[in-house]
């Protein structure tokens, strides 16, 4: 198979605009399910890019032309004048409640495309004017261009924006090897400092944490980010899609070398052998491989009073807030930045960890408690087709399916890679059924928790 490449022509066929925002398929444990990109692709070529893995394996993506969203329609919608059925629904469930918008789910808000096209600039202005809470996940340097800096400087007093900058190493050399087309790590530290100095909430996004790469400069990277003013660290480990096409194998070859695994064959074997098979074909290493690095970052955050966040299914219980992106539970400078979802398992796992380490009680988790009716979008048929699971559903199921239906099916199917027991790999274990017939899970204390507690690490702290 030939590696897909992009062109910057106007789309000849299909819809004119890219459809975004959408509801994340990771909604079971995601605090910011409203995820947004303003281009359908990203100009960077990070060799670990999970968006590339998903998109290059998606048979529905046949047109590789670059498309952007309809910024005018989105600006009108955010301002209370929604355009079209989709925007009306997003207004109803999210914008009208000023629900935190996550910009940068499958692409970079400030990549080279934005530098050329500036589609995002008026939208940024509208978000600022509406005091709309927004978290940017990015690496791109367009943010440092004058127009953007002026804009962020202007809204820095109201602090409705937060930023997380992705880094896998502090070494500029290694960065150039792995993150082609991305500003050097040292420049990203400078961007963090610029935004921190403006007074914004900034997070070091330690994702993906690549064994053999990120651990090499971890201490220096944490220190540099701390000096640059971060208030949180969010980590998640690199995982491998077993459906490796030719383009992915090219990238895996680079990563195999960087990780100390030699070649693609050894690379695939390493991930196959060390990933719990119950999690399915997206191979995430088991928690034993990750423990040393997690402990280092967690204790660093405790020491420096930073928010530790773990987006990885392993050690997710250690999150210090209910948001695994590292957003704060409380943010007095602008309470709107607290407006992310608690109806998800990251929040409940964190609460279960605290309960256990404070009074020794193992929290019971029911489906109805975790996914309460507060999360109104879960019950709207309109959003059902946003979920990746629809690819395995019949037409009849898709017509009436909601996110809640899909999540309930995963919750109660102990063979599903997305069931809480399999996904968190024994951190939640099934113990009973509730009155609605849904499985009840309970928090399972693990050996590492007792060991860490004996070493003096306080796991009863928020």
């Amino acid at each position: 198979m030939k590696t897909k490449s992009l062109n910057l022509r106007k789309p000849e066929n299909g819809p004119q605009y890219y459809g975004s925002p959408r509801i994340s398929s990771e909604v079971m444990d995601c605090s910011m399910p409203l995820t947004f990109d303003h281009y359908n692709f990203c100009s960077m070529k990070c060799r670990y890019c999970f968006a590339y893995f998903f998109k290059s394996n998606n048979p529905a993506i046949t047109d590789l032309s670059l498309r952007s969203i309809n910024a005018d329609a989105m600006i009108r919608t955010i301002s209370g004048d929604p355009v079209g059925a989709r925007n009306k629904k997003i207004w109803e469930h999210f914008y009208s409640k000023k629900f935190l918008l996550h910009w940068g789910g499958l692409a970079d808000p400030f990549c080279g495309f934005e530098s050329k096209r500036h589609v995002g600039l008026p939208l940024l202005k509208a978000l600022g004017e509406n005091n709309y809470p927004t978290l940017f996940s990015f690496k791109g340097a367009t943010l440092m261009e004058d127009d953007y800096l002026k804009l962020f400087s202007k809204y820095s007093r109201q602090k409705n924006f937060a930023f997380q900058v992705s880094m896998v190493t502090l070494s500029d050399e290694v960065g150039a090897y792995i993150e082609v087309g991305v500003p050097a790590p040292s420049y990203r530290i400078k961007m963090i400092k610029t935004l921190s100095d403006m007074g914004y909430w900034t997070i070091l996004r330690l994702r993906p944490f690549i064994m053999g790469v990120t651990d090499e400069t971890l201490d220096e990277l944490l220190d540099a980010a701390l000096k640059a003013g971060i208030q949180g660290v969010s980590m998640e480990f690199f995982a491998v899609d077993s459906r490796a096409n030719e383009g992915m194998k090219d990238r895996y070859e680079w990563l195999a070398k960087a990780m100390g695994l030699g070649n693609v064959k050894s690379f695939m074997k390493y991930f196959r052998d060390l990933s719990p098979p119950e999690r399915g074909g997206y191979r995430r290493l088991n928690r034993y491989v990750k423990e040393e690095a997690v402990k280092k970052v967690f204790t660093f955050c405790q020491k420096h009073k930073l928010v530790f966040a773990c987006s990885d299914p392993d050690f997710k219980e250690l999150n210090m807030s209910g948001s695994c992106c590292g957003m704060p539970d409380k943010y007095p400078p602008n309470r709107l930045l607290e407006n992310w979802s608690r109806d998800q398992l990251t929040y409940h796992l964190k609460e279960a960890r605290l309960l256990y380490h404070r009074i020794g009680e193992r929290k019971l988790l029911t489906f109805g408690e975790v996914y309460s009716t507060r999360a109104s979008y879960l019950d709207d048929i309109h959003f059902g087709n946003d979920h990746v699971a629809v690819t395995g559903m019949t037409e009849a199921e898709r017509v009436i399916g909601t996110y809640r239906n899909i999540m309930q099916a995963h919750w109660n199917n102990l063979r599903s890679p997305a069931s809480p027991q399999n996904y968190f790999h024994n951190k939640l274990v099934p113990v009973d059924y509730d009155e609605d017939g849904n499985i009840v899970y309970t928090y399972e204390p693990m050996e590492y928790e007792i060991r860490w507690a004996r070493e003096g690490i306080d796991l009863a702290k928020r």
Partner: protein
Amino acid sequence: MSILDKYKKEAQGTADGKRLDRAGKFLNKTSSGGPISKEKRRELEATMLKPDPIKPFAKGADQKPISNLTKWSVQLVLGSDENYELFSKFFKVNQYKGANVGYKQLAVLFAFLKAMERGNLSFDLETKILYYCKGKNKIEL
């Protein structure tokens, strides 16, 4: 020739190539975390850090108590697995919640339970009378 080698060859002599050479030296150096190389470390991980199996669903598991004392329901922090095992011989445990917190002094309770286990004490559930037992003799307490 691998893709990586091909790229490196193309990049030779260019700024990219020099940067890659420096990166290669960095990537091949001994791990800063200890005396072993990252290759060796990956090998050791692959050998030593296999994932655990998934635990079976506990619903319907045998929770029958050994004794016939089934009427009382209490919440106790037992402190250790040994204490839990002893306690569960005499009392039905509906849910064992594990332990990772300090516990109150339960020495008296466990001295009592140990005496029951040895047979020095027995309790008649119908008459609700506790007996001290010595040989075949039972003395009402």
